[in-house]
């Protein structure tokens, strides 16, 4: 299934949905929409080879966790289409990007807009931190660092079975502080897992603030290359750069695309909140109102009427 919009339009749509949602709910993962918009738009709108969704457009309520007593349990991966050998798979490793990921599903016609109304509501499967059963999710990634390893295992298994579909992991740069990320790259390289792809949102922010103030991570490209990956550094707001980056030859090695982004891209007023951008909760009615007017203007929409 191919969306009729351009990826630029999808990226704008993602930001508008996250903005409206955050205004109405007095907070949200706004900065992640700024940094990740183009990457998720490009993945879903152009790059990923996915089948039609297998789950209802309006998400079902929470139906229990996996257990032997819950035989009908399923993950939210059905929003990315069926598990078939030719199709790609995607893990959203930073599960707190869920709001942005759900907005993406809506923009590319894989989930109904009503899905976002269920965000973080009791009894809903559209959870704040994406769970396995949340739309578009396939595994739990809420503990940062486990996504790439799981992707490597799946990719290796699919390679053994001769499946042409790729395994993609959407990553955030903060998780390079976890040692497991480097174990994963080392292992994927050692075993020649070249059907593993990752695109990382290098926005240089983490929960406590700017990454350089929390724990410096050094030259990511050099580190990924030294651990055995092929790594391409691009402007994470330039969709043409993504189109080129994915063609980088990487025989026998995973491909990691570092998408360097601006955490207030398209919403410059968010810079007022630097360095605390992880979750933007408005501190006063004045701030909420000013941001509403400013961001609405930037995104070309009317300010959100959040009074009722």
């Amino acid at each position, binding site marked *: 299934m191919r969306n009729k919009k351009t990826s630029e339009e999808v990226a704008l749509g993602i930001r508008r949905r996250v903005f409206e949602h955050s205004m109405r709910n007095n907070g949200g993962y706004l900065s992640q929409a700024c940094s990740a918009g183009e990457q998720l738009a490009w993945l879903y709108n152009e790059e990923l080879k996915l089948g039609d969704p297998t789950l209802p457009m309006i998400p079902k309520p929470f139906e229990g966790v996996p257990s032997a007593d819950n035989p009908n349990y399923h993950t939210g991966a059905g929003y990315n289409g069926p598990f078939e050998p030719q199709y790609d798979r995607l893990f959203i490793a930073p599960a707190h990007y869920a709001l942005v990921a759900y907005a993406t599903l809506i923009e590319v016609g894989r989930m109904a807009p009503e899905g976002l109304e269920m965000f973080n509501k009791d009894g809903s499967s559209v959870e704040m931190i994406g769970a396995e059963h949340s739309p578009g999710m396939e595994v*739990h990634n809420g503990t940062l660092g*486990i996504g790439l*390893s799981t992707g490597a295992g799946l990719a290796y298994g699919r390679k*053994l079975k001769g499946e042409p579909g790729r395994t993609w992991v959407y990553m955030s740069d903060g998780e390079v502080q976890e040692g*497991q990320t480097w174990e994963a790259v*080392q*292992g994927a390289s050692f075993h020649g897992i070249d059907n593993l792809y990752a695109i990382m949102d290098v926005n240089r922010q983490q929960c406590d603030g700017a990454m350089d103030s929390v724990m410096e991570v050094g030259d990511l490209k050099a580190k990924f290359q030294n651990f055995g990956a092929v790594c391409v550094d691009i402007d994470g707001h330039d969709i043409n750069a993504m189109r080129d980056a994915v063609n980088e030859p990487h025989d026998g090695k995973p491909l990691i695309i570092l998408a360097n982004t601006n955490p207030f891209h398209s919403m410059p007023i968010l810079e007022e909140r630097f360095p605390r951008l992880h979750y933007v909760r408005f501190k006063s009615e004045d701030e909420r109102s000013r941001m509403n007017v400013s961001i609405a203007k930037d995104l070309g929409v009317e300010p959100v009427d959040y009074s009722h």
Partner: protein
Amino acid sequence: MVEMVSRPYASAFEKFAVGKPEILCLSADLTSSCEVDGFRDRHPDQFLSLGMAEQNMMSFAGGLGLAGFRPFIHTFGVFMYRRPYDQLMASIAYPRRKVRLMGFLPGITTPGGMTHQSIEDISVMRSIPNMTILETGDATEVESICEAADSIDGPVWCRVLRGSVPRLFDTPIKVGEMRVLSEGDDILVVTSGITTEEAMRARSALKEAGLSIRHIHLHTIKPFDHKQLLDHIGSVKHGVVTIENHVTEGGVGSLVAETMADAGVGKRLVRLGLKDTYAHGGSRAYLMRYYGLDALALVGGIEDIMGQKFGITEEDMEAARVDDVHSLVKAEAL
């Protein structure tokens, strides 16, 4: 004299895995120590070296499970749950991946000391939803552990014995059942793993002392057949003694205590095992004596319940086996 079997896991795993391409053998730099070096050499297409990187290995195995494979992870038990506990939870246990966790060196079966001895693994695994727990107590159980583990629709934690292992039983593990080794009516003795052999060593001396022992051996710790245990408890007059190669908190002793408390059973229970303590490095026989996990300790537990001494000494029991520290059946002296 009990028959000793050399490296039963090595041949059992190979026999089990050959011809099953969906079974993968994962190792974390302890391949010969876990007796799968021969398998690695003869079946490299089913073998995956993941190095000393257990966090990645656990999530990677979860990914393999997602792709339809059934990975058997081989390393020392401690290395599979202490450091990569989060990965065990999120990538394996929660999604019920069919990952078979073959944990070697259970409890004090190694002179490697605290860092190598998994003394609280059963407690940890019992509290993980979706986890199944199996423990081997002899060569026949080691030989049948792969089939037993692979019959489970979900993750399985296995305590596996290696090296020179006694053959005590002649039937394979049947998941969910318990072995009834004697059917007396004074005291119920519940054992698992290496403590079963200890209870068997004490059998004739206890009989000599006029005690009628009901002895059951557990290879399936979770899920657990509480009703069957209660029937056995109901068949004895005086009480229950558990003895385990594990801390007494959260292991088999706790399992029995919970079963009794839930059912309102008012009999005495003595739980033997590591008493809220780490162990140190030493031979198995030394550690079992030092920490009270051996036949003599079991006699003491029974005396406690009966309120009398029977004057049983080590000489009255069948000889304890002494493993060579430097043995050809072990890859290293651990």
